[in-house]
């Protein structure tokens, strides 16, 4: 039951915030924060009672719930929490709180509706991380798009309508491909067993011919690749991240991209292990291209938000590489990289958003020399920039290093090429710091430094990132228990016996 409440709490919070927004601007913020705090408490209670038993190298589920929803179609309300989901939901709640606090002063119009959309997106993301029924998964997958669309389209910057529509079309269109693949998988399973079901574990046992498996896997892969984003599908990302309000960018980069990686880990690979193995070289090539191309694009930007957006393409290239390298080391690295990227990029977006709020520009050609005016922002900016270039001791380093190590064992060529990405990332990260904080000052606008509210947010994220970089063992434990679950599902495939 507690799993359902994990999803319902932000939903209720969103509704409350939406209605309270008519009265008062502060109330929706406090209500949203309160609901997220309750959600976090629920999660911690769940952990406290079940953690020791469940987070073991063998991997089990901390909690599962399985109720009928549309019984005639075999659709069930099946939710489950394991180590992998747990880490990502923690990230979701953490970034949710951060983004509410960060947009405290930025959003002053239609505050109620803003928080309604924000909380609804979070509810959808949590649902995605919990769903174990493929229909339910798709339901949440689509559900998080609509409020995100509104966040961009209503509170975004100059070209918000264009960006919002592009975001929606890309993700919805690829989602429909996945939906067709889900339905096809369920129907093939129905013909084999006579039971119509969308259950994750049941569908994992479906016997598929190699061609069918490849097509279905591609249906899933494209949907997740658009979200991740993998290079040919990445064009929506820069627009959406750039035009979204700060909270929108944080949630997009920190969470929505992670749903793509999570989908690959949870669904695309375990459901179609043979096809994924055959496809791995292509996926890893795309990952390496993403790492290098994303980093180069980031370097070429003048717009701060676009720069940060393209670094996401680069960082998530490592995740893709790690997932398809497929050994335990690389997968662990991919998961740590997901968390670290969520924190570091989220923080960079908050920082850039705060600068834009003060300066009304994101163009780095008009900036420079801000360190002396806003030393706190400068120092924090430097910290997250070097986090982003994967300085040892910070979370991103652990992630990228493990991915490279794991990949090297499987395909050394990819690992060597990907390592070049670290060099390019140093260039863009340092040039970002140089162009914004050093050099000659070009604006004369009066600036105020980070308020204590912002400092609190940033301090939390810095601590989390350092902790992830220095003592990632708890994360490894949780992740390896989640990975063991995935391994078990993948091994349930009986040897394929020709076309079904």
């Amino acid at each position, binding site marked *: 039951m507690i799993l359902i409440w994990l999803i319902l709490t932000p939903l209720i919070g969103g509704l409350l915030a939406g209605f309270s927004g008519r009265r008062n601007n502060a109330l929706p913020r406090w209500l949203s924060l309160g609901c997220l705090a309750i959600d976090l408490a629920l999660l911690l209670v769940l952990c406290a009672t079940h953690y020791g038993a469940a987070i073991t190298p063998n991997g089990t589920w901390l909690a599962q719930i399985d109720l009928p929803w549309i019984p005639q179609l075999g659709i069930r309300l099946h939710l489950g929490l394991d180590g992998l989901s747990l880490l990502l939901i923690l990230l979701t709640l953490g970034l949710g709180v951060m983004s509410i606090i960060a947009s405290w002063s930025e959003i002053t119009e239609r505050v109620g509706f803003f928080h309604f959309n924000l909380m609804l997106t979070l509810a959808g993301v949590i649902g995605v991380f919990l769903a174990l029924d493929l229909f339910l998964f798709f339901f949440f997958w689509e559900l998080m798009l609509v409020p995100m669309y509104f966040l961009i389209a209503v509170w975004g910057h100059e070209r918000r309508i264009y960006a919002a529509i592009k975001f929606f079309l890309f993700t919805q269109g690829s989602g429909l491909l996945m939906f*067709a693949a889900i339905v096809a998988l369920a129907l093939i399973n129905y013909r084999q067993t006579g039971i119509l079901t969308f259950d994750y574990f049941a569908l994992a046992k479906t016997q598929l011919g190699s061609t069918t498996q490849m097509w279905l896997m591609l249906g899933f892969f494209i949907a997740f690749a658009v979200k991740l984003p993998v290079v040919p599908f990445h064009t929506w990302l820069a627009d959406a991240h750039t035009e979204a309000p700060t909270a929108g960018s944080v949630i997009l980069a920190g969470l929505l991209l992670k749903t793509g990686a999570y989908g690959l880990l949870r669904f695309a690979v375990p459901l179609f292990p043979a096809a994924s193995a055959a496809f791995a070289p292509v996926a890893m090539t795309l990952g390496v291209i993403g790492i290098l191309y994303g980093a180069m694009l980031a370097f070429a930007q003048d717009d701060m938000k676009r720069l940060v957006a393209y670094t996401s393409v680069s960082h998530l290239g490592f995740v893709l590489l790690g997932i398809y390298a497929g050994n335990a080391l690389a997968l662990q690295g991919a998961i740590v990289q997901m968390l670290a990227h969520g924190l570091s990029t989220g923080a960079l977006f908050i920082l850039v958003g705060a600068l834009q709020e003060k300066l009304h520009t994101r163009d780095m050609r008009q900036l420079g020399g801000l360190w002396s005016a806003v030393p706190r922002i400068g120092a924090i900016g430097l910290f997250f920039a070097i986090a982003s270039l994967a300085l040892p001791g910070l979370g991103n380093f652990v992630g990228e290093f493990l991915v490279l190590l794991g990949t090297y064992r499987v395909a050394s060529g990819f690992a060597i090429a990907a390592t070049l990405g670290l060099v390019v990332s140093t260039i863009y990260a340092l040039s970002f710091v140089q162009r914004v904080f050093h050099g000659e000052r070009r604006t004369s606008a009066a600036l105020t430094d980070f308020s204590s509210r912002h400092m609190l947010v940033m301090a939390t994220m810095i601590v989390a990132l350092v902790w992830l970089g220095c003592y990632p063992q708890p994360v490894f434990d949780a992740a390896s228990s989640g990975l063991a679950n995935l391994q078990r599902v993948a091994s349930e495939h009986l040897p394929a016996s020709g076309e079904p």
Partner: protein
Amino acid sequence: MNGHDLTAILPLIVLGGTVTIVMLTIAFCRNHRLTALLSVLGLILCLIAIWPASDLAPRQVTPLFVIDRYALFYMGLIFAASIAILLLSYGYLAARRERPEEFYLLVLAATLGAVALVASDHFASFFLGLETLSISLLGLIAYPRDHEKSLEAGVKYLILAGISSAFLLFGMALVYARLGSMEFVRIATLLSTVDVSPDLYWLTGLALIFTGIGFKLSVVPFHMWAPDVYEGAPAPVAAFVAVVSKGAMFALLLRYFVTAAADSFGPAPMMIEIVAVASILVGNLLALLQTNIKRILAYSSIAHLGYLLVAFLAGGALRIEAVTYYLVAYAVMTVGAFGIITVLSASSADAEIEDLDAYRGLIWRRPWLGGAFVAMLLSLAGIPLTMGFIGKFYAIAAGVSATMWPAVIALIVGSIIGLFYYLRVIVAICTPAPESATTAYGGAVPIVGGATLAALTLMLIGLGVYPTPLVHLIQVTAAQMTVR
């Protein structure tokens, strides 16, 4: 014909009675409120009359009609849609210059035709029902007599409806000439014994009948009339054309195909698949170019009929289930979308609020109406939490189970294109309005219309989140249809 037969066709009788009573009332005492009340009461009685009839189903009443759960389900849908449309029109008509009473009479008569269609089991009742429906619709489309656009739409509809009826009749004649029967069941038995697939009479007849039906459904390439008629007709009438007329026709098409084994239709499934793909693509692409909401909805309706045809082509029990759920969803969201135009237009005596620009900032000025409109549009686009999503799920499932990949791909591509223009409308609703536009609709929302819209929106979301009761009902309905 005995007492049981009369009970079985009770909904038809009650509706016939209501038409007569309303006609007489108008003749003796012109009163808008009284007419509306009588019409709605009559329709509610019809809905209630479905219960006694369903105990007797399935039952053949004269060679012309068959009353089974399938027919009764669609009757219920048609009655409910008509009630909703009448309730929405009340405030709208009160604000117009024309005398409103005959509007109700025509809607009731058209409903009678539609109901006869879904129960028909014979070419004669098929044709009679169709003509009752078409002729009443003609009156409704051209109801604002002094509006040039409405008259134009009326004439267009008259000519095309006439031509399509002629096609249909000729097709029926050819089928009769070949098989010697006009009863669907009898035709089905004959088809299972005689191999007609290479027969020219049969194929031509089938093609002509499908052409006639295609006109009514406004699927590509018979779609040209739809946007003009939707634009010219009053908004509630457009909803009626889109939902009741097309829905009844689709129900009949489904019965026609399920009764006779589909294998004997030769190239028909392929033909329908081509029509479906063309409707989806053409409908969605042309909708991109429109700036008039009613025209957008017209083209979107063409595309939705294409989705329905994809669902229609699936085999087995899934076919009836998919089509029926989709039709219910389509009815709710289309009546809802046109209902919002109707309710908003109630405040202006002359023109309708149909230009996209007039909807700018609607959600900030009228949060509930704007929210309902956004919900309807998201449902039309097939986004979760709404009935449209489950409908799209059914359509995709049907297409996949029949392994019609071109149709499934067209459906996906069509949905993406569709999303684009639905989002355009949503963007308009959500952007802050220019100051000059604020005067466009100042009046209060009619209470009856507002309540109907609220009910529709609740249904849209309720049955989208928890569709189990509806799915169960449809499965019971479908079971009887396949057994027969």
